[in-house]
């Protein structure tokens, strides 16, 4: 399968950011049906997890940017997602990320986020980008701070509290 609208591949030292594909579904279902998907509106049933993958691809078609699937390059293991999402009712495009269970603590998130941010800046013309983070999601808050994003304001979405973190535009940590 090849995607019609170009979804670019982005390489980092250890990771490959690539187009989502059908074989991502099993990992998406594992993630989407687990409590780890709480911060992206889950947990979902199988249909909801399938929809997460389809929405991702549809958003690339509709907006020209979206979530990449992130593989560890050396063994092609699909370990999470990073990219720019912009649901219709969001205030602005969001730099978002999520690692699957077992892949935290290796700096993969940081590496993926910096690469995605730089690509979004130079190729999509997006930035300085925001990230909307649930204040109880301490791992994501720490990652945002580590890559140079700064707290800008608090807001509620669907009754859930969020902190908006603003990234530096350069793509490099501030």
């Amino acid at each position, binding site marked *: 399968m090849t995607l019609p609208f170009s979804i670019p591949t982005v390489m980092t030292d250890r990771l490959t950011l690539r187009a989502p594909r059908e074989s991502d579904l099993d990992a998406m279902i594992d993630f989407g049906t687990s409590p780890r998907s709480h911060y992206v509106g889950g947990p979902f049933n199988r249909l909801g997890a399938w929809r997460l993958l389809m929405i991702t691809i*549809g958003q690339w078609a509709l907006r020209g940017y979206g979530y990449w699937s992130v593989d560890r390059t050396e063994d092609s293991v699909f370990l999470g997602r990073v990219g720019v999402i912009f*649901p219709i009712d969001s205030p602005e495009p969001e730099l978002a990320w999520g690692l699957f269970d077992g892949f935290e603590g290796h700096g993969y998130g940081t590496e993926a986020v910096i690469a995605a941010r730089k690509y979004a800046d130079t190729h999509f013309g997006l930035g300085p980008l925001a990230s909307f983070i649930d204040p109880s999601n301490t791992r994501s808050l720490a990652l945002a701070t580590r890559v140079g994003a700064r707290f800008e304001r608090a807001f509620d979405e669907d009754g859930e509290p969020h902190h908006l973190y603003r990234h530096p535009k350069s793509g490099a940590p501030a």
Partner: protein
Amino acid sequence: MIAPTLHTQNLTLRMPCLADFEPRAEFASSNRSIWEGGPLDRHSTWRIFASEVGQWPLLGYGPFSVDDTATGAYVGEVGIYHPSDYPEPELGWFVIPTAEGRGIAAEAALRVMLWARQTFGWDRLVNYIDPMNARSIALAMRLGGVVDETLSGQDDTDVVIRHDLRGLA
């Protein structure tokens, strides 16, 4: 792949785009959408719209946005839907209220059936229709569909209508 552009006498069927969202959301938020799982808020409509558009590259079929060729106005959607909980690909349609009564859904649906036959060689397409949605059932019959009680729908109450594509070119 993305949707090819198809033409009928009056209509242009094409790949959906972001500009289609507002008229689609207006339809989905109205009582007209009760047979399509509505009324729905904008967030839900976005999720469904984006996920259906995402079918194209993964499955090679999906929704076509339908324009009135003469005016370029968006009038609705006809396409082949296949969420993971559907037993098989489904032919579906909706027309926005201001464009109803002009045979748009029928004209576009026939074109999509022909395209599906030519592209995939399928012998049939089905509709899953709520039994209370008399208007869509009537249209499906007018298109040559027959109720097939041996087939499963999206849920137990759906009327499943089978369209034989084998007579199409």
